[in-house]
Each structure stands twice: as structure tokens, then as C-alpha cells.
């Protein structure tokens, strides 16, 4: 004879199962769900994005509101960074982007993406181009949600060649969604790599005219910035840009060496990157401890202005004899860049970087 609580439990479980079964029956009303539903993604720009968007009326690049370039029509045939051929019947208008640097480039081309991977993170870390409302969130950059991506009905998906799971994107290819693989970075020539990626996206969206205008304006701005720095005649033109992490009593410093995007922009402005140590092949980043910083001589020390929860890194370094003895620190030549500059971005980020360099060396 089953006890009363057991019988009640059995009844509860059975009725739950029945209810669940009933709810699960039937088919999804695909008519109502035909339009992709953006899932509360792009938060309004956070405080760190208060820095004026780089394509505003006063900045170096012409804003999209004033843009009068034409969009190309006609079929597109591209070779992407992995050597694959991407064929489109017409330039893509609904573009999904799975990495932040490429998202920024797309926005500079005045095309609004329909889906972005990790839009909240983008808004925090990359303030060069603000993300408009209504962009769908498709999950993390490492594992984008294919279901969400497909429901956004993209004409083209832009990915970074070194990241992501190619076999997963094969499923998109089976459903005739084209995938464009772009190179994220290349320490051999980071500025050229950025321009190539920018160009590739421009071709895919038919915005080659706009791309030419942007790249010309970028060149002009870099030249003007180099002149501004030369006119200011700083005491030294060598620099090291670094960031780092403090956990407990440990410190790990990350100087941006030869082949890093930040370092190359600086050298383009006529400055010298004082970090010549070993760097990784893709992003040009090195590793060091405090003692290693004493090898840079009297270079100006530059650092990010985007602070994490422990605040400014250099506050943690204060009091250390090696740090205090560095010429840059002793002579107050340790400067923070403006916050919100994404160090792996596109042309708009390059403009932000150039402005930051000018502010550091002539301020």
C-alpha cells in the first residue's frame, strides 16, 4: 500500500509531465516568428563612451550623416583571408559580425549590422563607433549561437580567421549563408592588415567609395598628427605603451611591441617604440615584469585609460624602487590615454590613437 505522501508525489510528477507534454505538442507558428527578434542587446552607450564618436562632425573622419558616397551594385566575388572564394549576387546589406574590430569597421562604412557577438562588451571596450539600437545579440565571440545567427537572416557573416570554429560555420554554409573570414591582425604589418580587412568588408558591402574616403582621411589625419607632434618638439620621442594585470601580490605587464597596432600607429607619427623584446606573432604583444621596464631608457610611458575594478595600474606600481627610478616616472612623463580606445580596432580607432598620442606628447 503506497503511502499518502508518495502517492501525492506521484500524482504531482505525473500531472507535471502531462502538462509539459501538452505544452510541447504542436508546431511553432513560424509565420509570427519570421521577423528576427533582437534580444535586448545594445545597451545605450556607457559612461566610457562619452568620448565623442569618432565620426562626428568635428572629427577627422566624415560622419555617416554627412556621407555622400555611393553604394556599389552588381555581383561580388571576393577571396577572403583563408583563401576561400565568397560569391554574392549583390553587395550584402544584412551583415552579422562576430568580432569587435570588424564591427567597428562596418559601422565606419555606414552599414549597420543586424547581429553582433557580445554587443555589451563592444559598447564598453570600443567607443570609436557607437552601436545603434536593435542589433541582435548572438552570444560570445568564441562560440556564437548559430540558431540566433540564422534567425537574424544575414546576407553575410563576417568572422575573424584565427578565432571561431570553422566546422560550426560549415552549418551556415550548408544553408547558403556566405561567410567571410578576415584576418584579425598580423604583427608583420598591423596597419596594412587593418586596411586590408577594412577593404574586404567594404567590397563585400559595396562601400568601396566610402572606404577610399575613410582611408584617405585617415592618412591625412596621421600626417597632421605627426606634424603636430614635431611642432610641439617633445624632449623625447620614444615611447612604450603597456597595460598589465595585478592579482594579489603578482604583477604581469604587457608592453605593446614591434608589430602591435598601437605601436605601429605611434611609429607612423614619427615616434619610436622603445620595446624591442620578444612579441607574439599575431598581435605584437610582449610580456615583462617591473624590472624589465628599466630597459626602455627615458621613453615616455603610455598606458590605457580604461580601468578595471582595481583602478589605475600605475597606482599599484607606486612605491616600487625600480618603477620610481624610471626616468619617465621620475620626470612625470607617464601618461594615460583617453578611455575606451580599442587597441585592436579599425580606422576610427586609429584616429583615436593618433589623437591620444598627440595629447600625450604635446600636452
Amino acid at each position, binding site marked *: 500500500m503506497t503511502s499518502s505522501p508518495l502517492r501525492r508525489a506521484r500524482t504531482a510528477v505525473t500531472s507535471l509531465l502531462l502538462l509539459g507534454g501538452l505544452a510541447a505538442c504542436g508546431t511553432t507558428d513560424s509565420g509570427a516568428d519570421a521577423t528576427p527578434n533582437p534580444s535586448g542587446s545594445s545597451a545605450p552607450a556607457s559612461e566610457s563612451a562619452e568620448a565623442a564618436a569618432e565620426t562626428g562632425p568635428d572629427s577627422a573622419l566624415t560622419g555617416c550623416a554627412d556621407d555622400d558616397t555611393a553604394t556599389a551594385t552588381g555581383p561580388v566575388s571576393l577571396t577572403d583571408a583563408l583563401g576561400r572564394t565568397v560569391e554574392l549576387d549583390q553587395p550584402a546589406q544584412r551583415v552579422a559580425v562576430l568580432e569587435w574590430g570588424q564591427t567597428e569597421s562596418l559601422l565606419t562604412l555606414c552599414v549597420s549590422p543586424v547581429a553582433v557577438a557580445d554587443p555589451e562588451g563592444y559598447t564598453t571596450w570600443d567607443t570609436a563607433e557607437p552601436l545603434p539600437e536593435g542589433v541582435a545579440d548572438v552570444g560570445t565571440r568564441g*562560440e556564437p549561437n548559430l*540558431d540566433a545567427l540564422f*534567425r537574424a537572416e544575414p546576407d553575410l557573416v563576417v568572422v575573424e580567421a584565427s578565432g571561431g*570554429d570553422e566546422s560550426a560555420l560549415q552549418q551556415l554554409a550548408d544553408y547558403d549563408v556566405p561567410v567571410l573570414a578576415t584576418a584579425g591582425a598580423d604583427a608583420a604589418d598591423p596597419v596594412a592588415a587593418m586596411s586590408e580587412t577594412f577593404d574586404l568588408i567594404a567590397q563585400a558591402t559595396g562601400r568601396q567609395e566610402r572606404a577610399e574616403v575613410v582611408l584617405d582621411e585617415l592618412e591625412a589625419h596621421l600626417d597632421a598628427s605627426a606634424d603636430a607632434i614635431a611642432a610641439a618638439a617633445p624632449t623625447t620621442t620614444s615611447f612604450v605603451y603597456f597595460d598589465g594585470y595585478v*592579482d594579489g601580490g603578482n604583477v604581469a605587464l*604587457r608592453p605593446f611591441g614591434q608589430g602591435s597596432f598601437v605601436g605601429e600607429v605611434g611609429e607612423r607619427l614619427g615616434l619610436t617604440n622603445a620595446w624591442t623584446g620578444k612579441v607574439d606573432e599575431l598581435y605584437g604583444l610582449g*610580456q615583462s615584469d617591473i*624590472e624589465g621596464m628599466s630597459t626602455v631608457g627615458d621613453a615616455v610611458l603610455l598606458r590605457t585609460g580604461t580601468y578595471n575594478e582595481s583602478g589605475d595600474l600605475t597606482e599599484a606600481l607606486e612605491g*616600487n624602487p625600480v618603477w620610481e*627610478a624610471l626616468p619617465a616616472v621620475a620626470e612625470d612623463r607617464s601618461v594615460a590615454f583617453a578611455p575606451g580606445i580599442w587597441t585592436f580596432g579599425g580606422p576610427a580607432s586609429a584616429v583615436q590613437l593618433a589623437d591620444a598620442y598627440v595629447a600625450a606628447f604635446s600636452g
Partner: protein
Amino acid sequence: MSVDQDPVAAAVTPLRGRRVVGAGAVLLGLTGLLVVASAWHLTQGTSGLGVSDLLRLVTGGDTTGQVRDVVVGSRLPRLAAGLLVGVALGVAGALLQSVARNPIASPDTLAVTAGAYVAVVAVAAFGVAVPLWASGLVAFAGGVLAAGLVLAMAGGAGTSTSRLVLAGSAVALALQSATAMLLVLFEEETTGLFAWGSGTLSQLGLRAFWQASPVVLACVVGALLLARRLDLLGLGDDGAASLGVPVRATRGAGVLLAVLLTAAAVTLAGPIGFIGLVAPALVRLAARWAPAFHRHALLLPASGLVGALVVVLSDVVLRAWLGAAAAIEIPTGVTTTLLGAVVLVVLARRMRDAGSSRGTARAGARAPSRSRGRFVVVLVVVAGVTVGAVVLGLLAGYTWLRTGDVALWLGGDAPPFVAFALDERAPRVAAAVVGGGALALAGCLVQATCRNPLAEPGILGITGGAGVGAVVVVTAGGGSGTPVLLGAAVVGGLVAFALVYLVSWRGGLDSDRIVLVGVGVSAVAAGLTTYLLLRSSPWDTPRLYTWLSGTTYGRSWGQVLPVVLVLLVVVPVVVALRRELDLLAVDDDTPRLAGVPLERARLVVLTAAAVLSATCVVAVGVVGFVGLVAPHAARALVGGRHSRVLPVAVLLGAVLLSLADTLGRTVIAPAQVPAGLVVALIGAPYFVWLLARTRA
């Protein structure tokens, strides 16, 4: 056995004069070695200052003060941290090994390092504002809280050490999974923390050292005060109690001191592994020739000195070999893990056979045999739950579907959205079901052979080897998800298993020894994996990390097929061997008495487990918990006979992994949590609950 050769007797008999002098000489010698190593350490650094510059400083020729600044600001803190960490971890390991009477107990067993790591990562991921002076306290507090949780679950610090080890391992696994999840989901906020997780000696200055040294000093003094009681504890609980030693209080004090020492060490240098295991082991090894070192009054300081020596020497040798600038890429913990694992394997080989049965300490082993009727009911219910889990897996996800959609899709008439979603989900659900079942089956086989409640396929080094194979391919430039990667993973797993089997073979296979060697090989594999990942991507949590955490993302039918084929081959073999499994699980003598060829049966069973786990890596990546929990749960439901346990365990494993996969895909959609992490997060509390149900 003479007094010299019996460790316990050597610990309790009084010291004679000659022995004291001999012991003192050894300690002096160790200190001398340490001084030499430290001096060498001071001459190495990234700024290029060498011996001549240091000599200038000593002779007063350093006019600009540059050498003094570098020494005081960077080299001394690094050396001081290394020494303090080595001493703290060495003493903590010696305490735990004595309290647990187990030569492989270590500070990591109580989840202190795992707790510290998760606290630091959580603070970074959620952007909690922590003032700079308190940043070390985060790691300390995390470590102590985690150890407190373990102790509370195991029933107090004085409880039996097997429960302590089980609870600690379960909590450590859960916390490591939580850490992995945070590293994956909050990639930008936790940059650099993947590397920190393996330990680093780069110091900000001497502040952390001054904060930690009073704690370490006080604990070492406390440990020395406990030394005599610890000697007597080696006689066994009853023996010690009859001599007037308060057993529970002593054990509790020993554990607490070990926790505080480990937490202090983590604040200084991050989670550095294996020192607490290696240092006391080396001292005990040396004690064969100097029996005075079995006494804790000498064992504890010697362990501390040896620990410091190991840390400083490994740093010195690495920097001498690679140069200081290049050596920064390799976390200190990787070097100590590789070194310590080799020592562990060597020790394991020297271990004498434990002989007859080790005691079936499996949770649930004392469950009374269940009736056949109950078995059938359980089987039917679990099969029903499996079907339900499969259906739920197909319906759940970013887009919720309904059963009618599935019917349409099967018929080929579904609208594109539905078809795409189901085409993506179906292989993933299949991979989870098949992978979970295969892992559970492998877990049953391994637990039967090793007779160890913590045994699972990963413990034999298989999953670690598979990880190394995969990482080698990916960092050499192959893409993830290619057939080459999967083939390399399978080969790596099988090679690791072969290595473990051959190294632990000494005229026969001892279950304790194979577990120890397996732990050592797994640690080597983990160290190698971390090193290779950091070399290719020193700052970002590597994208491969999600695969290494066990994920079904991007799976296709072609990756599910190998596991199905292997299952079709292995299941009949295992069914034919079900009675031999029952005999193997008792002890080593029973199969011999029953006329079963012991070594051959064990080889067949373990190879089957190895092939199953290595192939599973293809479908679900590296998943660790299923092979541990599913057999336990099955035994708790239907008793110990393998003809009943195997089918139930397979189904339970399938349900567990498929539910974990479904949860991971749905709860925070569109972001995804790897299935392996969800399994550990829900498996660990369940495992501890199982633990709580068994008698001590």
C-alpha cells in the same frame, strides 16, 4: 623490521646523539644549498644586470643606485616570495600527509587553491571594486572559505581523511569548473587570469611578502608545537588515543594550519601546484637513509627547506636555460608541476604493493542487494528519463520548439528556421547522449579495476593525453574541429594510457600504483597543455579552452559516429566480462581464486575504458565528471552487481550529460556554457550529497 626501517617506530623512539648530529648536518647542508641557489637567483633578471653589477653593489661601487633599486624593487621580492611559498607549501604538505596518513595528500586536496582562484576570477569578472592593499586578501579569503566549505561537508576537520579527500576533490572540481566558466564568459575582464592560474613569482614589491610572512611564521611555529603529537598519530587513531593524544583535536589543528599556510602561499604567487606533494615526499624518501627525519620536529623544517629549494631551483634553472625574458612566458606552476609529477611517478614505482584488499571504500558499496523487480523498475524509469532528456534537448535552446516541429523535420517538411535549429541541435544532443553513456561505461570499468572511489577515466591520464594531442595540433596551426585534431586527441589519449600502464607495471598491476602514476601523468599533461596554450596566446583565455572544458558546440554527425561504433564493439565485450568485473572489484586475490586470469582481464577492461574515453573526446571534448558520478549513482540505485550496474550507469551518464548540455545551451542563451562545466557544477553537490549519505 628494525627501528631504522619502520617510519612510525623511527618517529617515536628517542633520538640518540649520533642521529641528532647527522640530522643537524643534513639540515645545515640543505640551508647551504638554499643560500647558494638564492644567490644564483639574485643574479638573474630581465634588466640584464649580472654578477659583476651585484659585486659592485656589495663593494659600494653602485653610485647611481640603479643596481640597488633593481635588487630591492624586483629581485629580492621575487626571491623572498619563492622562499616563503616553498616553505609554506612544504610544511602544509607535510602536515596534511601526516594527518591523512596518505603519501599523496597535498594542499590542493582541500580545495584551497581552487577557492583562491575562483575568488580572484570572480572579482575580476564581475568588476567588484577592491582596494589595492586588500587585493591579496581576496585570494586568502577565497582559499579559506573553500577549505571551510570542504571541512563542513566532510563533517569537521577531525573527520576521517578519506571523506576529507573525497569532499575536497569534489569541491575543487566544482570550483575549477566555475572558474573556467567565468574565464570563458567574461573574456575581456579576465585577461591574464588564465596564466595567473598556474602561478607566477613576479612581485609588485615586498608588501605582499610582509603581509604573508607573519601568518606563515605563526603557522610553522604552531606546526612545530604539534610535532610530537603528529609522531604519535602515526601509530593509528587507537594507538595514539591510548597514549593520551587528543586525536580529533590534533587532526583538526593540523588541517587548519595547512589551510592557512596554503592560503598565504596563494596570495603571494597564485595557485602553484605540487610543491606540497613533492617536498615531504622527497624528505620521506631521504629518511630511508637518515631515519631521524621521520620525526616531525625534523620532518617539518626539512619539508619547508626542500619546498623552498624546489621553487627557487626550478625558477633558477628555467631562467638559466631560457633567459629571464623568455622564462616569463612559462608560469612557475607549470615547471613545478612537471617536476613534481615526475617525482610522483618515480615514487609510485618504488611503492611496495599494498597486497590484499584495500577495502571497498566506494560510496554505496554497502547498499544491500536489491531485488530483481526493483532493478527492472529502475531500468525502465531511467530509460524513460533518457528519452525525455533527448526530447527536451531537441526542443530547448535559443529558440524553443515543439514536438510537432520535430515530426515535421523528421519528415523533411519543416520551415527553414526550424530545420536549421534542429539540424544544429540533433548532432549535439546525440553527441551528449552517446558521449555520456560511453564515459559512464568507462567510469564503471575503471572503478572496478582500480577499486578507488575517485577513479574515473581521467585519472588514468587518458583525457589529459587527449588534451595534449589536441593542443599540439591547434597550436601548430591546424583548425579546431578538423579530423586531424580529433585523430590527434584519440592518439594522445591512448599513448597516455599506454604510458601509465607500462610505467605502473612491475610484475603485475597494483591498483594504488596505477592511480598514482595516472595522477602524475595527468598532471604532466595538464602542465604541458597550459604551457602550449600560453605560448600561443599568452594573454587571452584560449578559444580551445572551451573545447577542453567539454562542449558539443559545432558537432556534426560525422563526429558522433566513431563513438557509436566503438560502443557497438565494446558493449558486447563488457557484457561477456560482467562476472569478471564483479570479481575484480573485490580485491586481487578473489579473481585468482576463481580461476580468472587477473592481469589479462584487467588489461582488457582498462583498454576498453581507454578506447571509450579517448573516442568520447571526439564527440564531447574533455568531460571529467560523468565517469565518476554515474557509476556511483547506479550503484546506489541497484546495488553492486555489474550486470545491473552497467546498463543503469550508461543510461544515467547519457541523461546527465545531455541535461547538462541542454542547460548550458539554454539558460544564458544566446551565450553558452560548455557542457563539461555544467556537469561538474551540478555533479559536485550531488556527489557530496552521496558522500553525506554514507557512513564515515
